[in-house]
């Protein structure tokens, strides 16, 4: 079970000695991946990525992307955040989805529970209309799944990192960051 856990401190965290966290186990992970796989199958899209609002990649399903996924995740979060601010400026509460159209490749981004962003990459083998409809269903499923995850996160102890992690990481920092 431990091998499938996922932990994240919430934005309300950052308090010393025990930031709130959430995690999901094997069954949550399977449920989320099933929703994403189903979305790809039904929409004929190539790849789905879940990114958190701070710019970190949570999971990828479908064709494994050949691009730099760390950069992609950080830009996705920035894109979504910038558009949130634009929405506020024109008096909208939010833009809960964004669409970027390219000549061959396009991407559709949708908010999941205000904490995650679902990104779907697709090409001319499908249509925007189909992708949009199927993403709506998937987002509903993901929202339900994550509501449970977040709901039980409060008060749950996060598994500790192995003893010796800090010392070893510090040695690596000295080795990596030198002239």
């Amino acid at each position, binding site marked *: 079970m431990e091998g499938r856990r996922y*932990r994240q401190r919430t934005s309300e965290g950052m308090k010393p000695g025990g930031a709130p966290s959430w995690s999901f186990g094997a069954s949550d992970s399977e449920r989320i991946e099933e929703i994403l796989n189903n979305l790809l199958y039904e929409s004929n899209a190539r790849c789905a990525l879940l990114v958190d609002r*701070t710019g*970190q990649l949570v999971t990828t399903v479908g064709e494994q992307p050949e691009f730099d996924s760390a950069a992609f995740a950080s830009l996705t*979060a920035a894109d979504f*955040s910038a558009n949130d*601010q634009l929405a506020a400026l024109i008096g909208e509460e939010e833009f809960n989805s964004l669409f970027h159209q390219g000549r061959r490749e396009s991407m559709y981004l949708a908010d999941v529970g205000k904490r995650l962003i679902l990104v779907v990459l697709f090409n001319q083998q499908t249509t925007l209309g189909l992708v949009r409809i199927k993403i709506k269903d998937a987002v509903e499923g993901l929202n339900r799944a994550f509501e449970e995850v977040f709901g039980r996160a409060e008060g749950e102890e996060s598994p500790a990192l*192995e003893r010796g992690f800090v010392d*070893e990481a510090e040695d*690596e920092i000295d080795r990596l960051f030198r002239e």
Partner: protein
Amino acid sequence: MSMINYASREINCKIVYYGPGLGGKTTNLEYIYNKVAPSTRGKLISLATETERTLFFDFLPVDLGTIRGFKTRFHLYTVPGQVYYNASRKLILKGVDGVVFVADSQIERLDANIESMHNLYENLAEYGYDLRQIPFVIQYNKRDLPNVSNVEELERHLNPDRVPAYEGVATKGVGVFDTLKAVAKLVIKSLG
């Protein structure tokens, strides 16, 4: 908000370089990008204007390798320093694990440093974060210029809590790794 992903056994930590415009934040990242082994870093992404002023952020992922079974990575970000880019600056602080304040040591930039430090406190407070509880280091940059304030004066204005502070000449790499090592170790300690 370090992300520990027990499914893929990854730890990602977000470090943000903050400070007034033209203080040397991007120069710090460029130096790191050029000096660390290419196999340990990703692309340096810069969202900048045509005149190379940071518009939204710079981003550089640096890989520490696998530590006790966890692939450990630092995500380094800069923010745009100019006062009127505050909306973008605030967005980048979301989920920050560690902060580097890059101060411009020139006498005429003292007020800009102070204003930027206040802005950092304010923006963090809006997310419910307290800078005194976050790994935080300061770099006094541009020490090679003739018209600089002395370090004691900068400390008095910018570092009342006496967090670790380093003198730097980012264009030549002086102090860049000392600063990064200090904040990275503080972030790692906060995980343990």
